[in-house]
């Protein structure tokens, strides 16, 4: 019984808290980087242009912000000669995107698990983002992206994710 309760408590801990608690992860190492690339459903061609930004310990993508996903904190650790990162973007209307990716040699490859719960079912779908580091990209701050996402969540602006 105690094990079951422990398991339930463990499952109830949000991913963000788990990552923060993991001493192998830290934050901010990718700040200032922008990756331009394409996104698409796992196992299918990457069919949507997107750009992922890392600023101020947070990350977001232009495609996600336009759909109402708020910038989220990201966490990194060194692995296999590159940098692994994880983070979550959330939208009230469209659910939650859990990013898990690797930055190596100026390229990023990330698996994105999208989850959206409705009263009659839950959608769990995997996407991929592949991009390359682009220098000199002017990006808004995380606060500006958050404001844009807040507006877009109720009234999407060019949401093509």
């Amino acid at each position, binding site marked *: 019984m105690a094990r079951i309760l422990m398991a339930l408590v463990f499952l109830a801990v949000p991913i963000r808290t788990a990552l923060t608690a993991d001493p192998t992860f830290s934050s901010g190492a990718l700040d200032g980087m922008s990756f331009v690339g394409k996104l698409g*459903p796992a196992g299918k061609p990457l069919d949507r242009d997107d750009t992922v930004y890392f600023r101020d310990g947070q990350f977001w993508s232009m495609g996600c912000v336009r759909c109402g996903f708020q910038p989220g904190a990201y966490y990194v650790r060194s692995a296999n000669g590159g940098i692994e990162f994880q983070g979550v973007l959330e939208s009230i*209307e469209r659910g939650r995107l859990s990013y898990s990716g690797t930055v190596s040699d100026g390229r990023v490859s990330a698996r994105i698990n*999208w989850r959206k719960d*409705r009263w*009659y*079912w839950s959608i769990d*779908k995997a996407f991929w983002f592949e991009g390359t580091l682009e220098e000199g990209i002017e990006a808004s701050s995380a606060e500006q992206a958050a404001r844009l996402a807040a507006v877009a969540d109720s009234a999407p602006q060019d949401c093509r994710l």
Partner: protein
Amino acid sequence: MNPSRILLLAALYLGLIFGGAFIGQQLTDLVAFDIRPSNEPEVHGAIMTCTAAYILASAIPFVPGAEIGLGMMLLLGPRIAVLVYGSMVAALMIAYLIGRLIPPAATARAFAVLGLRRARDLSLDLAPLDTGARLRLLTARAPRRIVPFLLRHRYLALALAFNLPGNTLLGGGGGIALAAGLTGLYSPGGYALTVVLAVLPVPLMIFLTGHHP
């Protein structure tokens, strides 16, 4: 019955079957989405609209409701099975209740219009009787071999009819449910329990295993 009336009935029958299949295809096409974050709210709205249409369509005789439900589960995945199951139960309850509300005289008139005189006479004979008396009358008039057995086990027979492949030819789930209501042989509680159990196997199997039959 004269040949022109037979042709008219045959045309009506085929029209109902193909019309039902057409409605089913339209509903199935409506939910054929590639669900992504950008279109999920619209898909949700479409699923709700489609569910309402599915309930109403499945309550209509000769619409292949079970097949539409299977199509929805094939397109949207096993987790939609709960919604499909609830919708089918609702549809069969609606059709049954409509059948209960239709006056026997109206049923008899419809049989008369179709030229089905014996069915009209039987309907008029059954109209003033309670359930027990109706069962006795039907048992007495029916062929001795099968019908009395089916009447004794009418809830089981109904459950089997709902699950009979190709039952669209008999009127589909909606038609069978409407007929069940029209006969007055099924109590609302017994009918509801029968439907809840009869519709359950396929959606439950799909929900639990993720496999389609």
